């Protein structure tokens, strides 16, 4: 996969790998770049992955994935995503970091035999923006609570080579 650098217009190869113990320590110390408390996901059943450029070891984005087995939701849940501070908003350095992380979740869902289904429960106020940023998601409203949305299927994602 490739990340687009806004200043130069160039694309740079990036990789996604599982977080190591050392990475968690780095992220914990780097409070200026990451706001979530990622350390508490270190020992949980979910898996935390990092995205970085191939040529550096600077973490640019993080994703926490939870696998739901075939007998239950039969999908990969995106529990959390965070892009580093310098890559958010108007002056961001690299684009499409979260998009690459979401595509990676889709790939994991295929590889782990969940049919490409990815689940996340977005904040209601963000739902339409996820749809704008990542394409027309199949969503439906929870009948029990009108303000809660689910994103049951995200099968459009084909990670770039």
């Amino acid at each position, binding site marked *: 996969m490739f990340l687009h650098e806004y200043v130069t217009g160039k694309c740079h190869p990036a990789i996604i790998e599982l977080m190591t113990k050392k990475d968690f320590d780095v992220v914990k110390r780097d409070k200026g770049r990451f*706001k*979530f*408390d990622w350390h508490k996901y270190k020992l949980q059943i979910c898996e935390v992955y990092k995205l970085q450029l191939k040529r550096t070891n600077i973490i640019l984005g993080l*994703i926490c994935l939870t696998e*739901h087995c075939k007998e*239950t*939701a*039969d*999908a990969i*849940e*995106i*529990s*959390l*995503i*965070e*892009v580093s501070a310098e*890559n*958010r*908003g*108007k002056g961001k350095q690299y684009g499409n*970091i*979260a998009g690459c992380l979401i595509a990676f979740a889709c*790939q994991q869902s*295929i*590889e782990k*035999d969940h*049919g*490409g*289904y990815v*689940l*996340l*429960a*977005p*904040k209601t*106020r*963000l739902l339409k*923006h*996820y749809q*704008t*940023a990542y394409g027309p998601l199949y969503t*439906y409203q*929870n009948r*029990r*609570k009108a303000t*809660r949305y*689910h994103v*049951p*299927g995200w099968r459009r994602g*084909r990670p770039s*080579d």
Partner: protein
Amino acid sequence: MKKGKSKSYDEIFEALQQEYTLEEIAESFVFPGPQGPEREAMLAEFTAFRKHARATETPEEKLIVRMLELRFQVQHYLKTDAVDEHLHFAHFLKEYITRLAKTNKDFAADIDIDPAELSLVLNRRRQPTDKLIYRLQIHSNENFPAVLWFKLLEKERAYELSRNKELIDKERKHVKKGLTFSFKKLSK
């Protein structure tokens, strides 16, 4: 807030809204979903949805998933340095045909190849020709490009070359005035 205590996700969300638009937040964050009974209800509903989706999946949708899975397997295998002698070109071609739910004969007809030739390739008695590889690319609508198949062959060939001790020893007597140092030994 007490020093050292981490902010709640709602607090972080509120703080982010001072700095970024909602669109920018969605481009950079996914917040955790509901917890407790609400999460249980959400998962139960999703499980029902998923069950229904599985039951109503079209054959084309199933094929897309199966082929994507195979392509990821090939890419993953090519990315790793490790060699698995069972994961050769013929293995992945057999998988491709199996996932199409076709017989070898039907598939050979689809790509206009002699069934006997396909059989020899699948049984590793003959190397696939460029013609076959390009036809695989065309058949797969470029979802499995020729380069992907060539890389599989290349990896297989590299493995065979590194293990053919008999041939290496046979060729040794033809080589004179070679390099006397070895990078392997120098690095020790």
